[in-house]
C-alpha cells in the first residue's frame, strides 16, 4: 500500500492514523489480535483503583507489541484537579508523558466538561505532558486548548460508544480548517466509512474503540478500519475533486451517432 505522510504529535511520528481504544474487548487475546490487525501505533488504556480482593491480570502485558505506544486516559475523573492527579499517577504507572485528557462528569452522555478540560490542559502542559484533549466539537474551545498547550485536540463525532458517526461534521470541518495542532476525531465513529469520511475531510487521525471491540469479528473489523483510515487519508492527500451542482461529462460529448 502507498504510504501516507507520517503524523507528528508531540515528540513522535505515527505512520498509522488509526488510534485504538482497548475497552470492551471480550478477552485480552482478542484485544491483542485486534490491535495487531488495526496496524495502530497508539492504544489507550484506562486507570482504575486496584481491587484488593480480585486477582490482577495485567492488561499491559497483552499490549506490549513492537511499535505500539500507550496512551493512558483520565476516564472517571470529574474535575481538573482529579484529572491532574490521574495524569501524574498514569505517568508514574506507565512511564509516559502522553495523556488522553477526558473529563466527563455526566454518566448518561459522557460529554466532556470544557472548562475543567482547559484548566487541566494548562496545568498538565506546564508539567510536561503531551495532552490530547477529548472535547466536544467546538472550534473556539479547540483553539483555546491549543493556546493552553494541548498537543492535539480530540473532538467527538458523537457521544462515546454511540456508533452514530460524524454527527458534528460541520463543526469538525471548522476545527480541522483552523487547528494549529493535530485533530483526532474521537468517539462516535461506528463504521469504517465514518473513519474514511473523517480522514477525507482532513482529520489527522481517528480514535476508534467500541465499533471494533463489539463487532461480531473484532479482528476483521480492526483490519477494515485500518484500510478505511488509510484509504481516507490517501484520498485527502490525493486532493479530491470539487462537488458541483451541475453535471460535468466524463466522456466526450462530440457527435458520434448523429452528425449535427
Amino acid at each position, binding site marked *: 500500500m502507498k504510504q501516507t505522510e507520517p503524523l507528528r504529535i508531540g515528540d513522535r511520528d505515527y505512520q498509522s492514523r488509526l488510534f485504538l481504544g482497548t475497552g470492551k474487548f471480550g478477552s485480552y487475546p482478542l484485544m491483542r489480535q485486534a490491535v495487531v490487525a488495526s496496524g495502530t501505533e497508539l492504544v489507550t488504556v484506562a486507570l482504575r483503583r486496584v481491587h484488593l480482593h480480585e486477582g490482577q491480570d495485567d492488561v499491559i502485558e497483552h499490549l506490549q507489541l513492537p511499535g505500539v505506544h500507550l496512551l493512558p*486516559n483520565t476516564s472517571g475523573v470529574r474535575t481538573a484537579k482529579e484529572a491532574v492527579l490521574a495524569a501524574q499517577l498514569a505517568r508514574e504507572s506507565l512511564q509516559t508523558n502522553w495523556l488522553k485528557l477526558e473529563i466527563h462528569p455526566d454518566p448518561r452522555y459522557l460529554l466532556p466538561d470544557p472548562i475543567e478540560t482547559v484548566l487541566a490542559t494548562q496545568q498538565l502542559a506546564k508539567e510536561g505532558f503531551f495532552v490530547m484533549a477529548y472535547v466536544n466539537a467546538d472550534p473556539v474551545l479547540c483553539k483555546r486548548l491549543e493556546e493552553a498547550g494541548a498537543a492535539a485536540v480530540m473532538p467527538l463525532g458523537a457521544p462515546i460508544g454511540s456508533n452514530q458517526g460524524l454527527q458534528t461534521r460541520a463543526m469538525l470541518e471548522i476545527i480541522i480548517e483552523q487547528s494549529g495542532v493535530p485533530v483526532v476525531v474521537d468517539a462516535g465513529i461506528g463504521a469504517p466509512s465514518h473513519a474514511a469520511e473523517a480522514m477525507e475531510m482532513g482529520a489527522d487521525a481517528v480514535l476508534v474503540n467500541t465499533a471494533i471491540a463489539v463487532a461480531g469479528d473484532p479482528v476483521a473489523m480492526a483490519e477494515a478500519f485500518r484500510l478505511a483510515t488509510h484509504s481516507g487519508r490517501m484520498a485527502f492527500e490525493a486532493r479530491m475533486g470539487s462537488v458541483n451542482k451541475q453535471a460535468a461529462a466524463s466522456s466526450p460529448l462530440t457527435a458520434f451517432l448523429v452528425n449535427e
Partner: protein
Amino acid sequence: MIRIILNDDEITLDQGDTVDALLQQLSMDHPERIAIAVNDSVVRRSDWSSYRLNDNDRVLMIAPVQGG
C-alpha cells in the same frame, strides 16, 4: 498500630510502616504497573521504601485496565 484507608478498604499497619511494607502485606501482583498517591499526592516509586505512612492517611492505588 495505625489505620489507613487504601482505596475503599481500611487497613491496619504497624507504626512506621512504609509504602513498600504495605505492598508486601497485600502481596500485590504486578507492582511495576501500580501507582500510588497518599492524601492526593503521588508517591514516586523510588520513594516507596522510605515513605512512612501515618494514621488516617488516604492511600490511592491504581493500575491500568482496558479502556478507550
